[in-house]
């Protein structure tokens, strides 16, 4: 699991790459939480284009990050999930809780 970030004008983009399963989930979640506290962004984008695999453990990671953003009045959404990741998102109904943008760059306005 690799995590990198980009920050500009109140928007923090977190790029996740590798495989996100239960083995990686706890550490990933803690790291995202630290990033959100450090940057205090208005918007947070989780860019999943580098994720080769994700299971339902990843859903819990995303929901947790989204809750943390909501607590401080911020927004979080997911961008660019690959096919396998998108199937897990669809099956779990995550898109009812967190906006999911796929197939285009730039995200929500």
């Amino acid at each position, binding site marked *: 699991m690799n995590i990198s970030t980009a920050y500009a004008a109140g928007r923090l983009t977190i790029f996740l790459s590798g*495989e996100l*399963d*239960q*083995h990686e*989930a*706890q550490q990933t*979640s803690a790291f995202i939480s630290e990033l959100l506290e450090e940057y205090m962004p208005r918007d947070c984008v989780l860019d999943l284009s580098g994720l080769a*695999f994700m*299971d*339902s*453990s990843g*859903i*819990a990671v995303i*929901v*947790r990050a989204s809750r943390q953003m909501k607590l401080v009045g911020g927004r979080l959404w997911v961008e660019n999930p690959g*096919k*396998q990741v998108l*199937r*897990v998102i669809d*099956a*779990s*109904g995550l898109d009812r809780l967190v906006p999911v943008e796929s197939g285009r760059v730039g995200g929500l306005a």
Partner: protein
Amino acid sequence: MKERNYIKLEFPGKSSNEAFARAAAAAFAAQLDPTMEELGDIKTAVSEAVTNAIVHAYPNEIGKVSMRLRILEEDMLEVSVKDWGCGIESVEQAMKPLYTTGGEERSGMGFTIMGSFMDTLRVRSRPGKGTTVVMRRRIWRRKGTQ
């Protein structure tokens, strides 16, 4: 259904074995010439079943997990994941979306994903004895392949 091939793996319920289990399942399933999407679905379902065994069956210890894969007639792939852990009091309740005993680190979507990514899902469990999850998925032959 007649068995054409099988493998059996046994490993300690360490989370570092989750990636190995799904990669092994994908490597075995490859002989059915699945599409990338079918392979992704199998890996995901295996990851969910193995994670359940590791996290929920053995909450306070590292126990034994066994995974068996079989290829049956008509290109049916069967995955069984078995543990000898704490078992599930109510399988019906455990299979409901969002139900979890694992706190906020778990999404409660594992069985939902197994059920929607595989053709069939059966769960047998006895409290204090363990749990067996059996899933099947038919891999459709693609046009032009034998």
